């Protein structure tokens, strides 16, 4: 009876952009012991004062269903959509990655950045800041490769996601 298989889900939440709304969503996750792997939020419709929150979370099917039901009953929440279940979707994340290195390592970091289509958005004689956009997995891979090459700081936006095709929220 018990479904114990844990899977990762990307959930999009359309909310009224009002004071405390993010705290409500985050408080729900922490208060009920759900996991947040990534979270992004920004206003997406200024005229209706609506924001979109994208949460990547994981849990058993019963927990995921519970998370969506709990989110749906928050008063300022308009819509909850499970992008993992609703069909194919695009997930993108942006990361800024600082590499401090010299000599061959510095050159190698540039080469790898080129392969990953990462841009150097800042450079000094001893450092680069790379901007990389892609799926979280691609960014993970890039970071892993940069580690031995002088990776010194990482800033990631978290996942923004949207369904493919004509389907909308």
């Amino acid at each position, binding site marked *: *009876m018990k479904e114990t298989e844990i899977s990762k889900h990307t959930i999009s939440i359309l909310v*009224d952009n009002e*004071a405390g709304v993010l705290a*409500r969503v985050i408080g729900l996750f922490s208060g009920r012991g759900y996991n947040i792997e990534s979270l992004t939020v920004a206003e997406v419709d200024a005229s209706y004062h609506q924001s979109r929150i994208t949460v990547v979370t994981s849990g058993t099917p*019963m927990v995921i269903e*519970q998370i969506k039901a709990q989110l749906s*009953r928050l*008063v300022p929440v*308009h819509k909850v959509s499970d992008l993992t279940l609703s069909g194919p979707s695009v997930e993108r994340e942006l990361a800024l990655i600082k590499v401090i290195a010299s000599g061959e390592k510095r050159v190698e970091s540039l080469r790898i950045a080129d392969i990953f289509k990462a841009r150097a958005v800042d450079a000094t004689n001893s450092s680069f800041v790379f901007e990389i956009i892609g799926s979280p997995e691609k960014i993970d891979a890039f970071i892993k490769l940069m580690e031995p090459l002088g990776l010194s700081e990482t800033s990631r936006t978290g996942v923004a996601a949207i369904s493919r095709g004509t389907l909308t929220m």
Partner: protein
Amino acid sequence: MAERILNGSEVVLQALVDQGVEVVFGYPGGAVLPLYDEIFKQNRIRHILVRHEQAAVHAAEGYARSTGKVGVVLVTSGPGATNAVTGLTDALMDSIPIICLTGQVPTHLIGNDAFQEADTTGITRPCTKHNYLVKDSEKLARTMHEAFHVATSGRPGPVVIDLPKDILVAKAPYLEPSQVTHRTYNPIVKGDRGQIEQAIELLASAKKPILYCGGGVINSGSQACKILTEFTRMTGVPITLTLMGLGAYPASDKQYLGMLGMHGTYEANMAMHDCDVMIAIGARFDDRVTGNLDFFSPGSQKVQIDIDQSSINKNVPVDIGIIGDVGHVLEDMMKIWKAKQHRIDAKALDSWWDEIEGWRGKRCLSYKQPNDVIKPQHVIRRLHALTRDRKTYITTDVGQHQMWAAQHFGFEHPHEWMTSGGLGTMGYGMPAAMGVQVAHPDATVICFTGDASVMMNIQECATLKQYHLPVKTVILNNRYMGMVRQWQQLLHGSRYSESYSESLPDFVKLSEAFGFTGLTCNNPADLDDTLKQMLEIDGPVILDVAVDDKENCYPMIPSGKPHNEMLLGAETNGDEAIDSDEGMVLV
């Protein structure tokens, strides 16, 4: 329509009046002085001055649960708001519609650690259904009306409106309730027709069906309870109620199996365990009800009807989950059942009832009343018998007395039973009874309490006296925190750590000090006369009944055990220690 410009306090009061509010339970303070000034000047709304803000919320809960209306609370900023938190959490857990107006420091001081400032919306976010901080006078009227909509629609709950002092003074436009609609919050009330039909088919094909009903039926209203009763009788199915659902179905009816759960009846729990089709109506599979989830009703197909989507499949996966208001769904179920001329297999149902009668034969609630000491159950039974001809409302505190009241006081109608179910708040009983009595001045209102619980809001005696609220507070005094003592006896080797009430007041003198009557009783032979005497007194009474201090509350499903491993107690197998490390870590 020309806009009406009022000051903030006038807007708040006008909104309350337009929402049909007659009574507010509150306590003044610096931040809400403008509002109190307006209450004084207008004299349109009755204000009940409590002696502690927690009691204001419990009183509003009692008012709300006994009337089906919204309970309204008014407290000041800082400590006023933080004191209300327990009451708000209680109302959230038990789905009681409450509007709590809290004062706040003026907007320009918010965040400056001003005197009596607290982050009220931050603190109350997880313990309210929703909350608002009004920072813009333009939005004041809309927020007030929206709050009532949120508190009362869908699954009801408490809503806080935090009101900075400058907002209460500044000019603000007033909108009528009809001019305000909520953009997003409009819960589904009609259940899905297809699912309801499936549920009916399932019930019709059952051999061992049971209806398991909770507070949602009562929240849905008297009409929903009526339909439930009709539906149950029509189908011939056994029915059990949760602690919160008592009164939704008449307790004296033969199809009623009693309350289920940790201290529910043997027959109710065994029937839940062995049934093949379970229809859960307005009940949320709380841990007190299910016991060990791994062994909960293993052979049944389950239908759950609830207005709150998140209640479905939360603890127990169900086969059919119907989202909707219980009243609406039951009405549809009735219609379909009748239209299809369904009947449950009579032979199967008869043998199911035979099985149930077998369990009933255990008489799991029986006790012996000796000559020398009063059994707590007996007090409840006698008071039930003596109040049958009166319109009676019962409130309780939390612990053994609460369970005994639930087991032994038969509730025939909804809205007559007020108890802190989800949160289990000691100190709930007396203030809740105050609220009930305010709503029903001519009814008999009885608060069953314990010697420990009653002390938690004992200051409300002053409120009872001030407003001539003739609440009858019956203390089942065993000089222990009885339920704590019981668990210590059964699970912790009878080491009664800090559960003995070493220094109790003389409750007669205490009542007299507050200006009303106190009675005591310690002889079983005097019990009836004392109870009658109490009922005849026109004013508040505290009755201190010395009861058997070692009496345990049975039957009991120990934590972590399944329904079919109930302890039946002293009458059948004595107070056995529970040998379970697993149970020890559970609550």
